[in-house]
């Protein structure tokens, strides 16, 4: 320790966390160079403590809330459009396919109402799977961008 100077890490530990090893204390008592380095770090520390926290010139809260509100409205419109088109996608085939099934398979025995229920149910399951796929994909994209 006598011939070697204290490392930057040791000096910084002392100044910024208050840790000082015994042999380092002895060295500091006799080494002007290390004392000078220590003082430089102490000055840095005291100036760091007086630094003011920076702020933005704009109002973050209102900016963010405005953006979120806009996004929510846009999403709501998109969702409404999506469900409307989905409903159309379900009802149009039911209207056209049902008579075809009845004639092709000669299923007069099955009540028409039950057939509607069967076809609608199947289409609902398919659309649910499509929505789920769409949602999973969107979540994945979000995760990547995050």
């Amino acid at each position: 320790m006598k011939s070697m100077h204290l490392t930057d890490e040791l000096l910084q530990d002392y100044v910024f966390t208050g840790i000082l090893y015994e042999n380092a204390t002895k060295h500091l008592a006799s080494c002007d160079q290390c004392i000078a380095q220590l003082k430089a770090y102490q000055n840095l520390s005291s100036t760091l403590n007086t630094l003011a926290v920076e702020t933005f010139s704009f109002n973050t809260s209102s900016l963010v809330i405005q953006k979120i509100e806009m996004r929510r409205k846009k999403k709501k419109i998109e969702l409404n459009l999506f469900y409307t088109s989905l409903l159309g996608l379900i009802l149009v085939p039911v209207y056209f396919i049902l008579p075809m099934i009845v004639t092709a398979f000669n299923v007069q025995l099955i009540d028409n109402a039950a057939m509607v229920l069967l076809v609608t149910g199947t289409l609902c399951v398919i659309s649910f799977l499509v929505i789920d796929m769409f949602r999973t994909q969107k979540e994945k994209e979000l995760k990547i961008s995050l």
Partner: protein
Amino acid sequence: MSNESNHFSDKTIVAIILNGNIQGFAIVVKNTEQLVTQIVRKMTTNEDDQKDLVQDIYLKAYQYLPSFQFKSKLSTWIANIAYNTTINYLQKKRIPIIGIEKENEDKFIEGENPELETIKTEAVEILNAEIAKLPPLYQTLITLYHLEELPNKEISEITNLPEGTIKSYLYRARRILKDNINNRYKSE
């Protein structure tokens, strides 16, 4: 944190937001604004970009809030989003986050009175100028540790860097600051 926010734990406030109360998110923004500002401002300089980044950060936080696991503090989680978003921005702009350590090249403004340099406010100005010369990551670490007074563990959660790496970057950043400030005074 404000007094208003102290009434709410992270879990309560997340539940409020997830119930559709957007004002709950306004409280979160207010509580985390300072931390996010430090990260964004230390890593970017253009104000328009900062505006876009802040909006992007909070929008991501809002959209991704249902998946928040409470494994860390909400503020740490948002700071992590802020850090990652800003890093992505820097990468897109091809700005290195570490490695561009500018040497102390600038000289004092002509006519500046050396005696005044001992005044605290000027010391702060010098330090701010020297911090601004550090690589973006070092600036962020110095700010999070010294201004926000966050422990290394929390900084590690925000930056996804190991605590040892943070410690070593902090040593390095402080040494650069000390050397550059010393050189300024010596050059006088």
